[in-house]
């Protein structure tokens, strides 16, 4: 449509009536409609929360049927308006064309008259010459002149006939061309209109689709998020279990190492229990140890402390989370069950 | 066989004893503590020697023996031969007199009955197994068992003295069943 513009403007029609303006207007109208369309899209008081489930999809598009009729009327009105405008443009165009034909005819008449005048002037000149020679060769020339005159007249007639035919032909051609151009233009305009309409509908559809898509997307995302959350929960649970089993493994290792390192004093009895809270570094090295509950026997307490301190490195899981949860700080209870 | 074992054991004991004697002497000398000497009280006691029953010889005339007399003499000889046996053996941790010992013990009892002036000492022993004090009691019980048997068979209580040495005076050295069997015993010592 844009590349049509120069040709149209060359016709010298007033700018406000030009297709460009109309096209702009049309676009504006579309945009307005689109905005109106948007506005209802925007109107829902609250954007649906991200985390909602799929259930929320159905209520959301509800506003559209309410707004749809109004939109339909608008479009009807718009159509009528456009039709009217189009008719007006057609009429104007017809008048213009009539005027143009008249002008053409006038111009052709003028030319013919001018040629006639010239021809008459030439003829008078010739007649003056002939009159002069008439005396000299009037007899002889009479016939010649007569023949020449006759041939000339014939030629003139033929020429005139030719010119008229040509003019007629040109006129017909012009008319056909004009008609053809008009049809093409009309067709193009119709196509453009249709395309615009199509585009508008397409845009609308796309917008709608986008919105639906967005909604669906959101729902999907929410669903995914939920699934992810559940998956994470399951994974966390599995991890928990894994950490627990890891922890048990290392508990057993620590128990074994400490049992080997512990020399219960001979004063130990099965009633004695010493509790030590120990803190480890992530390397497994002992950071600190605190006697939280004494056995009541210094030698026994010392034997426990000495055992705890004797390990250069505690066996701990590689997994940092498991370490942090279970082995960063824990309690060791020394309580002989099987004294020899 | 027994003899050689005994000899060996004795030799060993002797050599160890010699060693021990040397070192002990050294230690004692070192200590030189006042009163140590007075602590040591070596009691002079002729122990460990078994005195075999003596003096049953009387004037015996060989003339004019009747059959009865002859029988009696034979019986007497047999009894005397039986009385040659003065050691009686026991099973582990028992004080039961074995059947084969009965006839001999009866002979001893009869002899004691017919010789009221004859005293006898019953020395009870145990093998080395078990505890010394229990074995001491066990030795005594064995001696008492023999004592009761003798009394039942005619000996008088006053003739009999018992003593237990427990496992302290083994007849045979060694830690084997044969030695133990020979050490679980009661010896009759006639005075």
């Amino acid at each position, binding site marked *: 449509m844009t590349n049509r513009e120069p040709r149209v403007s060359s016709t010298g029609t007033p700018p406000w009536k030009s297709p460009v303006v109309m096209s702009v207007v049309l676009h504006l109208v579309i945009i307005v409609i689109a905005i109106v369309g948007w506005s209802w899209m925007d109107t829902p008081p609250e954007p649906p929360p991200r985390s909602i489930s799929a259930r929320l999809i159905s209520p959301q598009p509800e506003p559209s049927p309410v707004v749809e009729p109004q939109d339909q009327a608008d479009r009807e009105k718009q159509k009528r308006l456009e039709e009217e405008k189009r008719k007006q443009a057609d009429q104007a165009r017809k008048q213009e064309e009539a005027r143009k034909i008249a002008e053409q005819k006038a111009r052709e008449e003028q030319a013919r008259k001018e040629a006639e005048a010239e021809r008459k002037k030439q003829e008078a000149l010739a007649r003056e010459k002939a009159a002069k020679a008439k005396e000299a060769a009037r007899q002889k020339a009479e016939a010649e002149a007569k023949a020449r005159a006759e041939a000339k007249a014939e030629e003139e007639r033929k020429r005139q006939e030719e010119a008229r035919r040509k003019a007629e032909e040109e006129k017909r051609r012009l008319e056909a061309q004009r008609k053809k151009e008009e049809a093409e233009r009309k067709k193009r305009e119709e196509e453009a209109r249709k395309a615009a309409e199509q585009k508008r509908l397409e845009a609308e559809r796309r917008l709608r689709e986008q919105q639906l898509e967005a909604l669906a997307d959101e729902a999907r995302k929410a669903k995914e998020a939920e699934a992810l959350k559940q998956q994470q929960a399951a994974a966390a649970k599995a991890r928990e279990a894994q950490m627990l089993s890891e922890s048990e493994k290392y508990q057993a290792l620590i128990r074994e190492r400490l049992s080997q390192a512990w020399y219960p004093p001979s004063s130990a009895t099965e009633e004695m229990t010493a509790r030590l809270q120990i803190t480890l570094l992530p390397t497994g090295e002992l950071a600190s140890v605190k006697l939280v509950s004494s056995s009541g026997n210094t030698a*026994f307490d010392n034997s426990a402390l000495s055992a705890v301190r004797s390990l250069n490195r505690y066996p701990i899981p590689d997994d940092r989370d498991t370490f942090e949860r279970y082995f960063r700080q824990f309690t060791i*209870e020394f309580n002989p069950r099987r004294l020899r | 066989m027994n003899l050689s074992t005994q000899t060996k054991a004795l030799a060993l004991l002797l050599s160890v004893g010699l060693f021990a004697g040397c070192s002990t002497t050294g230690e004692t000398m070192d200590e030189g503590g006042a009163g140590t000497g007075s602590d040591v009280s070596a009691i002079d*006691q002729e122990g460990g020697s078994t005195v075999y029953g003596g003096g049953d010889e009387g004037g015996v005339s060989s003339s004019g023996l009747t059959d009865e007399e002859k029988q009696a003499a034979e019986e007497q000889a047999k009894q005397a031969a039986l009385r040659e046996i003065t050691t009686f053996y026991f099973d582990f941790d028992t004080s039961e007199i074995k059947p084969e010992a009965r006839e001999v013990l009866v002979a001893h009892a009869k002899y004691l009955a017919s010789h009221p002036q004859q005293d006898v000492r019953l020395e009870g022993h145990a093998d080395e197994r*078990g505890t010394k004090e229990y074995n001491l009691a066990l030795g005594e019980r064995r001696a008492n068992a023999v004592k009761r048997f003798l009394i039942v068979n005619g000996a008088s209580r006053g003739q009999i003295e018992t003593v237990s040495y427990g496992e302290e005076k083994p007849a045979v050295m060694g830690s084997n069943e044969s030695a133990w069997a020979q050490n679980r015993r009661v010896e009759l010592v006639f005075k």
Partner: protein
Amino acid sequence: MTQRTRTLSRHVFLAVVIAMTALVNSAHAELLIRITEGADSAIPIAVVPFSESGTMPAGDKVSRIVQDDLTMSGEFRPLPPEKMLSLPSRREDVYFRDWRMLGQRYVLVGELKRSADRVSARYELFDVNRQERILGETASASVNSLRTLGHHISDKVYEAITGVKGAFSTRLAYITRDTFKGKPRYRLQVSDVDGKRARIRLESQEPILSPAWSPDGKKLAYVSFETGKPVIFVHELATGKRTKVADFPGLNSAPAWSDDGRSLLMTLSKDGNAEIYRMDLASGKLTKLTDHWAIDTEAVYDHTGQGIFFTSDRSGGPQIYHMDSLDAEPRRITFGSRYNARPRPDNEGRFVYYVHQRNSAFHIARTNLKTGEETILTRTSSDESPSISPNGRMLIYATKQGDNSVLTVISADGGAAYSLPASEGDVREPAWGPIVN
């Protein structure tokens, strides 16, 4: 709006669940590891040879005595000095890392100084893992009593680590038997617990049996056959004064002291059968404690000083019995085999130790008085005369080595065995003396 509320409540629920999980986790977080068993081996300790200034008498070094004492207890595993990286004698020279690397739990360092006829020992005991000094003292002894000094240090070290009084300064009484000039020779001897500094207290050609220490460690009661039969004597060690306390017809044996040292338990058979009596030493008055056709002997007071343990074959074979008081009904303690005799209880009422026959072998066993559980403590096979150390931690007994009897010390739980140097033939009937302050 309702949807939002629902969503919100969902969130809240989720949050609660998470918080609860966190709570549960935090409850998990305080891990508890329970250690119910200790190392099965002896405690590694480095007894560093003490530095010396001044001339020391010849003989064993003090630190060597300590090392041997601790080894004998069965509870310690001293590091051989040649394996030590350094020989510090003061704290500033102790590099804990080195000792830790050597696997040592404790380090004992010290220095000896002689001044005139006395030697003083300044010593310190360190816990290697805790890097703390747990004992530091200066002790002195006469120059001729370095063994006394060594045993004293052993006692202190032992007590500092185990919480139990050491028994290394106590004495042993035992009987030796050899042959001298073709005749048997019995000797009653008294020595340090490691068998050193032995002194002969009595010598006889007749058997000597069953030495028993008075509670004050000043007297020994024993059975001597010097008169041809078993007679009980009480022997004052300091003066050598001997008293014949029981010379009744039949057996006079198995003396055992009461806690106050004023009376003796003994076995007499004056009435024909071996029974247990209590004799008041001052008056000589006898109280008959058992009356049974069976053998009743080897009586000893229990840890309360009120009841007694003894051996009786009233069930057919010798077994251990206990009477809660002197007039209580005897209760059988041992059931594990046909032969269990010569009970020796500890001083805490936890165990009773005795001779136990299993198959054809005789072992030392003990029974847990609370549970009745019986444990065989020795691997040797002709074991006799168990005697428990006054701290209840060590046990000495006699066992056969070839044809001779030797003394062996084990920890009371049956740990490592330590044979005392036997230098004089048969060594038998050890009696562990009391701790004397």
